[in-house]
């Protein structure tokens, strides 16, 4: 595949750079090294990987991190070119990982852990939690219960087609709740982060977003209030699962055991995500804050119908 002399020179120069980089990086023994696919953001995943490698001499984690859409595309491409390249997948919501289980890609093993059964199945274990909370711009009355959100001014909701956390909320609330919001003038934006940005900036008065994103903005000084309206913030757990075709099963199990252990959960909590082990400290959460859980099993089968009904409300 020649591309002219100049092109060839560039091409071979790049190839050399890449080969050098590749050789330099492969000092660890291959048996101890795993590939991890995740959509958890760098703030959380980097400290977890660093701590794991530091406390497990010889272990090496090759990381691919991307937003859910790209992660799905990567997995789908892997399947079509000889199989999943990851040994472990750490997803951001149960639906995505359940889909992988249904395709026979991951699952079949979970470690011994104290993590509650509510965020576990025989195929995966929830290791980090997202909470859908309400945020209001300063000066706007915070909703005491979710239905109050409709009267909080101009409201923004995240798109359940883009963010599984938003889909979890849709699963919990049902379409009537959104129809009422829409009647009161609510709009749908992209991701929960878009909601946080929009409310902080004043484009909207209130919205639904994830707690990490809201508290992070608040701590920096954005003029917003975070509330956990009744009956509760909607909890979405991010599960970890082992590949069914991994060639490094021992190393993969070792990593999963670590992130589900008290030690691993503590690192996750310090890194800014909510651990699923109940008594491990995580980011800010009011004492006794009410929490509700969507019925993920029901959601798996109702997803398509639910999104179709939802599209009639905020449809494009």
């Amino acid at each position, binding site marked *: *595949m*020649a*591309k*002219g002399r*100049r*092109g060839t020179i*560039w*091409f071979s120069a*790049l*190839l050399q*750079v*890449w080969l050098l*980089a*590749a050789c330099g*990086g492969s000092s660890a023994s291959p048996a101890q090294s795993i590939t991890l696919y995740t959509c958890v*953001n760098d*703030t959380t995943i980097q400290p977890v990987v660093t701590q794991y490698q530091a406390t497990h001499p010889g272990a090496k984690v*090759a990381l*691919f991190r991307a*937003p859910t*859409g*790209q992660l*799905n*595309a990567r997995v*789908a*491409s892997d399947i*079509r*070119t000889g199989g999943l390249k990851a040994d472990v997948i750490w997803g951001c919501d149960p639906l995505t*990982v359940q889909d992988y289980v*249904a*395709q026979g890609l991951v699952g079949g093993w979970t470690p011994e852990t104290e993590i509650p059964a509510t965020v576990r199945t025989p195929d995966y274990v929830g290791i980090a939690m997202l909470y859908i909370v309400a945020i209001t*711009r300063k000066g706007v009355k915070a909703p005491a219960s979710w239905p109050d959100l409709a009267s909080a001014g*101009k409201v923004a909701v995240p*798109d359940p*087609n*883009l*963010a599984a956390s938003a*889909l979890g909320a849709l699963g919990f609330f049902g379409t009537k709740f959104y129809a009422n919001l829409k009647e009161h003038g609510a*709009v*749908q*934006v*992209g*991701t929960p*982060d*878009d909601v*946080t*940005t929009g409310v*902080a*900036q004043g*484009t909207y008065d209130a919205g639904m977003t994830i707690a990490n994103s809201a508290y992070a*903005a608040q701590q920096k*000084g*954005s003029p917003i209030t975070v509330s956990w309206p009744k009956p509760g913030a909607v909890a979405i757990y991010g599960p970890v699962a082992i590949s069914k075709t991994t060639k490094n099963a021992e190393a993969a199990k070792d990593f999963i055991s670590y992130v589900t252990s008290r030690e691993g959960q503590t690192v996750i909590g310090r890194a800014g995500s909510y651990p699923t082990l109940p008594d491990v400290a995580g980011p800010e959460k009011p004492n006794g804050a009410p929490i509700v859980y969507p019925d993920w099993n029901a959601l798996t089968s109702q*997803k398509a119908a639910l*999104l179709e009904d939802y*599209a*009639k409300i*905020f*449809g*494009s």
Partner: protein
Amino acid sequence: MPSSRAWLGAALSLALGSAAVLVVIPLAVLIKTSWVEGHDRLADVVSNPGFGSAVVHSFELSAAATLLAVPVGVAIALALRDRQLPGRAFWRAAVLLPLLVPDFVLGYSWLRAYARAGLTSELFGLAWMQIQGPVGVWVIVAVNAVPLVYLIIAVGLATRAEPTTERAARASGAGPATVLRTITLPLLAPAIATAAVVVFVLSMGAFAVPQLVGAPAGFGTITTRIYADLALGSDPQGFVEAITLALLLVVVTLIIVTPAETLLGGRLQLGRMAARDTDWPSSSPTTRVIVTIAMALYLMITSGLPLLALLSASVTRAIGVPSTPDNWTLDNFLAVLTPRTGEALSRSVLLALAAASILLVLGTIAAALGRTRGGRSVSILITLTLVLPGSTLAIGLLIGYGRWLADTVVIILLAYLAKLWALAHRPISAAVDRLPSAGLHAARVSGAGLPTALVTVVVPLLRPALLAAWGVCFLTALHEVTMSSLLYGPGSETLAVVVLNSADLGGVGVTAALSVLITAVVVLPAAALWALGRTGVRRPSAFSPGAWSA
């Protein structure tokens, strides 16, 4: 000495070979996936209630953006021809500003500038409430396309062969409007048509702006549907639907571009040597004042305020607090400038340099093949990867070459080449279309080999076009994120991937800091080179304003 025919044959096989690797194989992979796994579901995809409106919205967006961007770009290119225009060098550089801002922050910068509680609302109590909706999407996508139109028209003008025709008309008593209507615009027709095709295709594939600005008004396009399908694409259906929709974009592009290419067919063949456009008659002082004010206003609205909004976000500690000195911070920049990003930055610069340089060769070859049948096929083919959303193009490359190239910088480079080839090709072809053949012919008759003839006769005339093509590709590759974030592996992270992975597109301050940093990476060396050029060291630089349309 090989004959012209042999050279042409070699160029054609190189172009077709590259098109096979960069376009045909990835597309074939996508078609196969879509057909094998989804042909029985095609009816479902098409009959889905949101599908019709997405198609209509995509068409509306492309049509509106083309109708807005092309006249504005042409007008700016013509206005900036006047060498007496005050601050001409500055205007010519400033017009290109939108190219520096990645798509994914463009929409944000406009919202921050003009939406409710935005900059204009803080300063003057004025907000543009319709910005979040179809009109806002049209305007922002169009404004972002204006620099490309400007470049294509400006290089068309720079390679001009007939300024004398216009002067003759003026001398014979024709008014400026008559000259414009009867001489300038008709002679520019190929460049204008080229620009229109580029804008139409680019807008059809635009994703980030419709997603951020259009979504709140329920303005979904084919590209936003593709993204939603991928986000829910952990089940095979969503994945296959995304690919099928992307292929639909390709079909639509084929339907639009093929006739356009055929209509563009009759290239202007001029017998005379090109003359330098130095003696273009200046306009009247009044016109100059009006043009200056219009340029200043346009740039203030389309680049000045949005960029100011971005800059203020990058130095402000939190979103929603006033950007006053006691709220200023360098934290966002510190988050961007870590050892990891340093390594990624050098990799990104190297990748962008490699991509732009290879694309210069590929773009020139495609343009040189011109309107031969082979050339026309290549130019249509490479337009198809321009319209493919980055995510689906990356999937095609990953399925096509992932077995051998996954996780390497080579596959990222292939993605840049595939995506940007058309952007390199179009400005060069707009210039080539206006290139007189007499000089080349004379050189060949006098015994010069084709390469010598090209280097001594054609390249100097094409220099503005080559610099424009190189610059556009370099800038776009430097801040590319969609494809890189799907294709990277350990050790091949690009700058945008590292920065956005930590911010997940939500950390607006960090993202804004990234844009400012990228701008600095580009502007500082360019300014230095320009200063060097000004102090007498004659060195052409892609970014010295004079070089864009020498």
